[in-house]
């Protein structure tokens, strides 16, 4: 193994990292996971820990870029140079950059998430067989509604598992159309467009109108990336293959190697290559972001290239499904940081819940499609109960040594809700209980999964419906409903009648008689607890009914008949005397609500 001159290394062990931007090649959660696993490769054999943060102050800033991307070491287009990183130190040192003209995957071809259908969002399986023909991209074949779909197993003809592919005909992202799909043709500056376009923009993002006339209605959205048919390199990177296309007078309806001697598949991005000469490379296996990131993070921790071809720190890329670390890599990194800390002795289960990295909500939402026209059977939701929660929370120790377990140290809670007469405060897989009636003493922390086993550690909001006593829990686009010990879910938010534009539920205010206001950022909807449906037409801006509260609150809950709107560490309390909603108090959640010292 080799280290950098002077054994450059980090002087602290709790390393932080920031994912500054994303490639469009992979879903964001897959990218997050690939980087987290790449760091875990190194934390497994050293005392180092890696925590994700959201800002330039991070030790390791991760960035996707093309060509010259700001550090004076330009990338070189598709293939060749894949990524680079800088050795430990301040500023750009430690940063890791990835060439976004590569096709980033998990090493085995494009990763295309699916929506609706009957495969619960499983990714496409390429190639797949449909009516005896092989497909290596999403297709509209077999459908009359022009929706792109794919099989999520190798053989649709036998398994019949399918989902809809990201497509502008299914939904759009961001813009001002609440995720509505594109309308084709549409008119822009008097010209008719029958596909997404980058015209009128300088940032190269593909967009469309969501009505027939953009000039008149000004309603638009961005087109989801169709990674299965987007070309890389060539002279049309980022554009879509056009099939069929003419090449040397012959018609092609799939990617081809004709005309090349390097074996790469390519396609034209207009219908006639002979005339227009516009082209790019078709998706291939791509490069495993996990493997390349693990290599680059080796540099960011202080390792240089090795001449052991089987080692992770060998400069050439090679795909493997085995654990990537070689003995040579382990010797090198332990030369710099030593071995892992001995694991603490196992302790009685009621203490020391897992610690989770803090991860404030991301700002950009990934907009999900509205209900597809023919979703087919979506299969039963995973039915509960998944195990009886204990009758009450397991009793926590009365004195806790770990500061992270002190509720007064928590800045921002994931969710706060009044349930069973207690105010419940949730954070990173744990929760505390607080009751005025119990002498204002905070109990906990307890592990969420000990009480509600089906729940994830990270919640967005929760509430108890007073009439039915059902407890609703929200995380991302999923909802769980506990009735005593039994649970229904996770189910998708669209099962509650939410549209694709709703990425999370950030709060709830029960209004009695089974009516609840459900909040998502700056809007709220009327929800009927009996039918468990929202009235889509009831969407209203928060400040219309609750003037004076912050607009980007991250939690809304009811407590002792008053509404609380939280932003950062503060709450705005609204009381509804004589039908007028008025902010009558602003305070700190921990100091004023929980009476922390």
């Amino acid at each position: 193994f080799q280290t950098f001159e002077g054994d450059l290394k980090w002087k602290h062990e709790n390393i932080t990292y920031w994912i500054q931007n994303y490639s469009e090649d992979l879903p964001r959660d897959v990218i997050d996971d690939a980087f987290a696993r790449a760091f875990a490769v190194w934390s497994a054999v050293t005392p180092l820990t890696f925590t994700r943060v959201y800002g330039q102050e991070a030790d390791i800033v991760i960035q996707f870029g093309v060509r010259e991307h700001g550090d004076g070491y330009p990338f070189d287009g598709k293939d060749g140079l894949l990524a680079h990183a800088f050795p430990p130190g301040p500023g750009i040192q430690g940063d890791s950059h990835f060439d976004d003209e590569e096709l980033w995957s998990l090493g085995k071809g494009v990763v295309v998430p699916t929506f609706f259908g009957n495969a619960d969002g499983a990714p496409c399986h390429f190639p797949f067989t449909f009516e005896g023909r092989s497909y290596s991209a999403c297709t509209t074949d077999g459908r009359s509604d022009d929706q792109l779909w794919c099989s999520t197993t190798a053989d649709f003809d036998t398994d019949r598992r399918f989902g809809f592919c990201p497509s502008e005909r299914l939904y759009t992202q961001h813009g001002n159309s609440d995720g509505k799909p594109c309308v084709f043709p549409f008119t822009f500056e008097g010209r008719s467009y029958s596909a997404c376009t980058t015209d009128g923009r300088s940032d190269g993002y593909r967009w469309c109108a969501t009505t027939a006339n953009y000039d008149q209605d000004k309603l638009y959205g961005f087109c989801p990336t169709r990674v299965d048919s987007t070309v890389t390199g060539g002279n049309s990177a980022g554009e879509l293959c056009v099939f069929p296309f003419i090449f040397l007078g012959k018609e092609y309806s799939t990617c081809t190697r004709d005309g090349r001697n390097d074996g790469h598949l390519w396609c034209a991005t207009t219908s006639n290559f002979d005339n227009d000469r516009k082209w790019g490379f078709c998706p291939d296996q791509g490069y495993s972001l996990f493997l390349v990131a693990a290599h680059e993070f080796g540099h960011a921790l202080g390792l240089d290239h090795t001449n052991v071809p089987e080692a992770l720190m060998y400069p050439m890329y090679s795909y493997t499904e085995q654990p990537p670390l070689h003995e040579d890599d382990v010797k090198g990194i332990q030369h710099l940081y030593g071995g892992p800390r001995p694991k603490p002795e196992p302790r009685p289960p009621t203490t020391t819940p897992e610690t989770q990295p803090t991860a404030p909500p991301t700002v950009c939402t990934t907009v999900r499609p509205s209900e597809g026209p023919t979703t087919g059977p979506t299969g039963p939701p995973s039915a509960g109960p998944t195990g009886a929660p204990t009758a009450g929370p397991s009793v926590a120790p009365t004195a806790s040594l770990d500061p992270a377990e002190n509720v007064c140290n928590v800045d921002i809670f994931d969710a706060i809700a009044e349930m069973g007469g207690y105010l419940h405060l949730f954070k990173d897989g744990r929760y505390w209980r607080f009751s005025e009636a119990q002498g204002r003493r905070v109990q906990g922390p307890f592990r969420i999964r000990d009480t509600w086993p089906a729940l994830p550690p990270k919640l967005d909001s929760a509430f108890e419906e007073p009439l039915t006593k059902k407890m609703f829990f929200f995380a991302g686009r999923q909802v769980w409903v506990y009735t005593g010990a039994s649970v229904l879910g996770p189910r998708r938010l669209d099962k509650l009648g939410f549209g694709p534009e709703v990425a999370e539920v950030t709060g709830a205010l029960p209004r009695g008689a089974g009516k609840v206001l459900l909040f998502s950022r700056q809007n709220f909807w009327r929800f009927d607890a009996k039918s468990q449906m929202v009235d889509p037409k009831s969407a209203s801006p928060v400040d219309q009914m609750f003037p004076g509260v912050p607009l980007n609150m991250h939690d809304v809950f009811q407590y002792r008949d008053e509404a609380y709107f939280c932003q950062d560490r503060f709450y705005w309390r609204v009381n509804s005397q004589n039908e007028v909603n008025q902010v009558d108090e602003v305070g700190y959640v921990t100091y004023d609500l929980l009476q922390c010292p």
Partner: protein
Amino acid sequence: APRPHQPTVVVFPGDLGTTLTNKQLAEEYLHRYGYTQVMELSDDDQALSRALRVLQRRLSLPETGELDSTTLEAMRAPRCGVPDLGK
């Protein structure tokens, strides 16, 4: 009997890869990854051979000092951008 079809090779616009000669590819690679300080190789075959030997040793390739197919294949392989030698 029909003769096998000779594949037509087309020069694609914007496709740099197919226009460098092997020697140009080697010179650019050796410079980019730290084996030579400046692009002074163009007419000094000894220097090229020396640099190739260093690269072949570094990458555990057969040490021939020649721009052989194994070395060319390695130069065309996808890889990390951190130089192999130098700071």
